[in-house]
């Protein structure tokens, strides 16, 4: 009789009784204390929206933004970036020297740098860690970050077997020397990437082979790290929390007691949690909500230019796209300003180049503008006056509301300005990637986020051998400029000029249609200080503090 029991119980009740029963259940739940934000402000705990569940926190294996935030709190490299200016500052290395030819870096490791178990951080730790990252079986996705180092790539590809030939050397306990193949002005920036962070040898070896990935050494009960925070608790798909590391060399400057990272992959859920006072800061803001915040709570909205370019790849291998004039016509007929103002709530900056302006003083070449008349002329010269006789083309994009809206706007512009027929094709992420890689597309939406602040990170992806290229663009002169001339340029200005020349060449061939420069967008509670907006959307949690003010825990 048990399964019918609840039914028997309530058939006697009138609907009013049922309603009041439910209300009382609800009321039980709302003896609700302070919000996460209020509690966090009191206890120094930052509640941080962190996009997705981290795959892992092993610095040599991880990829992705959520992992980046967490690993940045747990580990520390030789240098770090100032979150305000992005200038390089000392971290585990207290100072360093660079040889006159820019190829040899000698780091001095600070005396008080220790692992969380009390062991000293030594030059040998770096030598062993970097050796580990270069083991092919570890399959580190960011291993290419090591390739400016002398013989690192050859060692990784097993053309060299003796690690002594690689430009990585612990001279003594505190001196670490790195030799490069060619001068790389961005090399110090790479050192702040987690792929070049040190790991604790004894701990890694205790739980598996050095080149074994995803062993248990990164579990909270096992991990030994050297950053400002320690891994405290890891609850899958709920949150991962870190707490202040009392052994950290600069612990007196660390203001937060703990950070709780929430894996929230849905932007609308994240925004609602923020409004309910459950988060201090969000990883994203749904684009439809931007006007509301602009209007009502502008102080919560943090928007800043971000080192990334949104673009359409054009498949130069397709007969109807092989003519450069067609590709130029496609690019010149897009009114980027109108696109951004109508579809994207005015959030981004129109892009007429693939390298965003202002990277270490780099200014992109002025190759084209929005010019529908010239676009029509070019299309006509290519043999399709007014779009007549043109077979039409297809835009593919991965499933996302924003990509769809942009594609519709561009479809409209190409139709109106050029008179060509455009179809839209929405694809699941992996199908979209597969079709792009195998060249099964006409125009494909894409984007590129720079790995470091230097034009090189936006240029070397378009060389013929690059896996990111995927446009069929292949130009020996371009490859020579980017891969040979730029690294060996005699000074910074010459190097920028070489990149400018390379980008001019690239844009004249127009294998991509650049559309806009990204902006990072977050919501942050007013009590959060030190989460600066910067070009890399980079945070250094050492600088973050919580200063409660008169506003309530709930931002709306």
């Amino acid at each position: 009789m048990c399964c019918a029991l609840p039914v028997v119980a309530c058939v006697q009740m009138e609907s009013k009784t049922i309603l009041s029963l439910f209300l009382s259940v609800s009321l039980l739940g709302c003896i609700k204390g302070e919000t996460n934000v209020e509690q966090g402000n009191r206890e120094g705990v930052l509640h941080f929206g962190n996009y997705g569940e981290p795959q892992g926190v092993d610095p040599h294996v991880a990829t992705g933004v959520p992992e980046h935030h967490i690993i940045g709190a747990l580990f520390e490299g030789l240098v770090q970036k100032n979150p305000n200016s992005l200038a390089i500052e000392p971290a585990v290395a207290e100072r360093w020297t660079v040889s006159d030819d820019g190829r040899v870096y000698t780091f001095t490791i600070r005396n008080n740098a220790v692992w969380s178990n009390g062991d000293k951080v030594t030059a040998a730790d770096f030598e062993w860690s970097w050796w580990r990252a270069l083991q092919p079986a570890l399959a580190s996705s960011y291993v290419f970050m090591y390739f400016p180092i002398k013989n690192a790539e050859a060692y990784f590809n097993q053309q060299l077997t003796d690690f002594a030939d690689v430009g990585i050397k612990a001279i003594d306990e505190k001196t670490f020397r790195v030799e490069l193949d060619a001068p790389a002005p961005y090399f110090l920036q790479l050192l702040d990437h987690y792929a070049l962070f040190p790991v604790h040898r004894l701990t890694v070896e205790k739980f598996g082979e050095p080149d074994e990935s995803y062993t248990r050494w990164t579990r909270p009960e096992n991990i030994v790290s050297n950053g400002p925070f320690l891994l405290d608790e890891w609850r899958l798909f709920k949150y991962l929390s870190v707490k202040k590391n009392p052994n950290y060399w600069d612990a007196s400057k660390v203001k937060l007691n703990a950070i709780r990272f929430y894996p929230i992959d849905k932007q609308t859920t994240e925004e609602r949690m923020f409004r309910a006072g459950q988060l201090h800061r969000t990883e994203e803001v749904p684009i439809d909500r931007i006007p509301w915040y602009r209007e009502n709570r502008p102080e919560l909205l943090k928007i800043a230019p971000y080192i990334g370019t949104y673009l359409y790849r054009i498949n130069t291998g397709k007969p109807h796209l092989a003519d450069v004039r067609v590709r130029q016509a496609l690019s010149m007929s897009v009114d980027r300003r109108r696109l951004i103002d109508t579809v994207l709530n005015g959030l981004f900056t129109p892009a007429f180049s693939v390298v965003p302006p202002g990277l270490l003083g780099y200014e992109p070449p002025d190759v084209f503008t929005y010019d529908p008349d010239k676009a029509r002329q070019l299309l006509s010269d290519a043999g399709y006056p007014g779009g007549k006789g043109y077979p039409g083309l297809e835009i593919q994009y991965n499933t996302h509301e924003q990509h769809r809206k942009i594609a519709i706007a561009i479809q409209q512009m190409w139709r109106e300005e050029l008179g060509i027929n455009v179809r839209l094709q929405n694809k699941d992420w992996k199908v979209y990637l597969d079709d792009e890689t195998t060249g099964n597309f006409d125009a494909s939406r894409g984007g590129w986020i720079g790995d470091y602040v230097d034009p090189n990170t936006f240029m070397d992806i378009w060389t013929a051998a690059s896996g990111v290229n995927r446009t069929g663009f292949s130009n020996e002169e371009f490859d020579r400029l980017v891969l040979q001339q730029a690294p060996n340029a005699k000074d910074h200005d010459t190097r920028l000029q070489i990149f400018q020349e390379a980008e001019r060449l690239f844009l004249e061939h127009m294998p991509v249609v650049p559309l806009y420069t990204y902006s990072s967008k977050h919501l942050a509670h007013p009590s959060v200080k030190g989460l600066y907006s910067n070009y890399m959307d980079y945070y250094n949690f050492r600088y973050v503090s919580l200063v409660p003010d008169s506003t309530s825990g709930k931002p709306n």
Partner: protein
Amino acid sequence: MLRFIVFRLLQAIPVLFVVISATFFLVRQAPGGPFDAEKPVIPAVKRALEAKYNLDQSLFQQYLSYMGDLVQGDMGPSFKYPGWAVQDLIASGFPVTAELGIYALLIALLVGTSAGVFASLKPNTRQDYIPMSVAMIGICMPTFLLGPLLVLVFGIWLEWLPISGWGDLPGDKILPSITLGAAYAAYIARLSRGGMLEVMSQDYIRTARAKGLPEHVVVLKHALRGGLVPVVAYLGPAFAGLLSGSFVVETIFQIPGLGRFYVQAAFNRDYTMILGTTIFLSTLIVLFNLLSDVIATWMNPRLRDSLRGGPQ
């Protein structure tokens, strides 16, 4: 009855075998693979990864070794979360989803049967139309609309309840359970109304009334048992649906359950995770269907008698 259960369990084995094999080969037909990314890993890294997961072997060899491991209870590491075995991830997500499903089902039963029985007592009057109209709206309203609506009203405007999490803040289980249960409550309301109406017109009810039994005894003791048979038959599929269909609610309320793993695994081409969750959920569905058949048989005397001679 025992023979019936054993027979049904034996039937389940080939069903599961077909499900596993079909899933194994079908997921491999989908374009793209687990290691494809916007920034492709360099070829040497990709080869190392494929070797690590045996993807460099022939598909049939991979199938055999997967089946071999599976028989020993090992579903392999997830491709997307390689630090965890698939069975660990299921073990962490399933209790949450099951708890959510049970609450949702209890709400659905409580509200649904009450409303349905209540409506059936005076058919084609206001007492019938109002709850049934509400039920119709409940069936039509998708969870991705109801969830955010409840959040907006109870979480953000009234500030009564937390709007995300599971077991972290007091009361955070209420809104997700109601959201998930609502559509099922509406369906159960219609089912129980229909069942009751049919039973109430039967001869034995007239007999009961003729005996002079009070109306509540007629309804509760005689009509209810037969009238709710359709609801009970629906419970197995409903609970299976609650478990495998909780993805939307888990996403809206940021709940660490199995539904999210399942859908994300498909997007990520996380082969082992897709297989693991499919095997787990299909096993559950088979079991729940069996369970609800057993209960329905036990509640319906005619079916029960027909089984006396063994399965037909």
